[in-house]
């Protein structure tokens, strides 16, 4: 099920924005396409990232995929737990598998993202 309270990108990242902060991860669809995740290269704390900029790399045995930031902002926290347990992204992509927390700029670009319904339609199109 696609959580209703999140926003989504075409590259299958999700973002939850609350009080000027954003939590970012990859969607259930993305993790299932990747297969068992073996490694996550996390962004550096304190780094500024622009919207659509490469912020992390997620690796499975046979593929490496870039994760693009859904919003612009500064990285204030990363999910260190993924270093030892990258499988959390498979098991709990919308919760324990989050990648990082950003302090969002005013012009965070959130408006340009899809809501749950739009993302669901987008996935349907892809599957066709």
């Amino acid at each position, binding site marked *: 099920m696609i959580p209703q309270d999140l926003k989504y990108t075409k590259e299958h990242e999700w973002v939850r924005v609350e009080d000027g902060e954003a939590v970012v991860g990859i969607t259930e669809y993305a993790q299932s396409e990747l297969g068992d995740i073996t490694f996550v*290269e996390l962004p550096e704390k304190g780094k500024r990232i622009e919207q659509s900029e490469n912020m992390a790399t997620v690796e499975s045995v046979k*593929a490496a995929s870039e994760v693009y930031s859904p919003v612009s902002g500064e990285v204030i926290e990363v999910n260190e737990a993924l270093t030892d347990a990258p499988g959390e992204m498979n098991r709990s992509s919308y919760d324990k598998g989050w990648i990082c927390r950003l302090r969002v700029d005013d012009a965070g670009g959130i408006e340009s993202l899809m809501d749950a319904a739009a993302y669901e339609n987008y996935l349907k199109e892809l599957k066709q």
Partner: protein
Amino acid sequence: MNYIPNAEGDVKEMLGAIGIGTGDMEELFRIIPPALRPLSFNLPPGSSEFDVEKYLRGLGRKNLTELVYFIGGGFYDHYIPAALDAIVSRSEFYTAYTPYQPEASQGTLQAIYEYQSCICRLTGMEAANASLYDGGTALYEAAMMAIRITGRNKIIMDGGVNPIYRKMMYSYTSNLSIDFSEIPVSHGQSDRGMIDEYLDDSTAAVILQNPNFFGAIDDHSDISEKCHKAGALVIESVYPVSLGLLKTPGEMDADIAVGEGQSLGMPLSFGGPYLGFMAARKKFVRKMPGRIAGATTDGKGRVGYVLTLQTREQHIRREKATSNICSNQALCALRALVYMSLIGKQGFVELARICRDKAEYAGQKLGKIKGVEVKRSAPTFNEFTLKLPGSADKVIGKLLDKGIVAGFPLGRYYADMEDYLLVAVTEKRTEREITMFADALEEALWS
């Protein structure tokens, strides 16, 4: 002949099955238009094994090989045990490809894992790869790896690093914006003061070699400490046989260790195939080039080995790979593993001792010759620098006539060192040969 099993009858039938009724092989190539056919293909006709061998043995006789080698320069004349060749001649090893299908390649994969383990134990490092082409490309790959890890682009190279490797480094990076500094050695060893002066917050790595090209040994721990404070990495290029005795890159707190593995059971073979080895801190392993084997289990819990962390490599990451390397020197890595296994833990220490003892003995003998000075500003392992009273080339020429390769003339790569000779002694050199060398040198200089 030509190792083609299918006889004429088979060929006709096979062509028929494809739909070529004429029996003409040329039909298979009809997609190649006449205009694109070879303008020429003039090669001699084939020969028998017997005739080819005769021809090649004839060429072989034009190589003078019954020589007594006192030349090293990073490439050494060590003894190769007979069992080594017997083992690596097993065609299950040498006619296999890269172990992409692990269940059909456990022999190769376990051997790589054991090789990686031996390299780690020898260098005192945490993680090794499955091999690179040679010591020079390994050093270049290490520099690129340090640049990736640190995000910096300045490299400081010690002047005691093999000059051929330094040239290779410049060739490979000539289209990249990398800022190199070279620090000449001072009194035989790495010049701390000057390295310090060049070390800054844009330095990705300091590249050192132990023993250095002049044969001098060093302890680079203090340089590592300074580098790490500056956020730079230390790359140590080492001669593996010396690690029977000498302080390891790990003990010196180096971040990446590389080297030429030829001395671990590879014949000199006029330059190859040799073996580039690389080991590093485990936390850097994802930035490492080349293949890496890892242990895992199957569905029944049996231990097995696979190529792992392949997302670093070109067949997956393409232009974003850590390196373009695909074919490596796998069989040479197997040679090194078998060599280390045959010589063994105690034997390896003993081997290093014998090399050094013989070198020290040779140094004493040669140093007694009038006008000859053994450079002793730093201790040495099995290679040392001689200052001669005249041109090293002249001496080399005279000694070649007596079947002795006296050493390498340092003037070839270092300005103002025309009178210096780099002499190497391995366990294969006998007391008699050393005496013969000393006598011949004395005669060449003074009679």
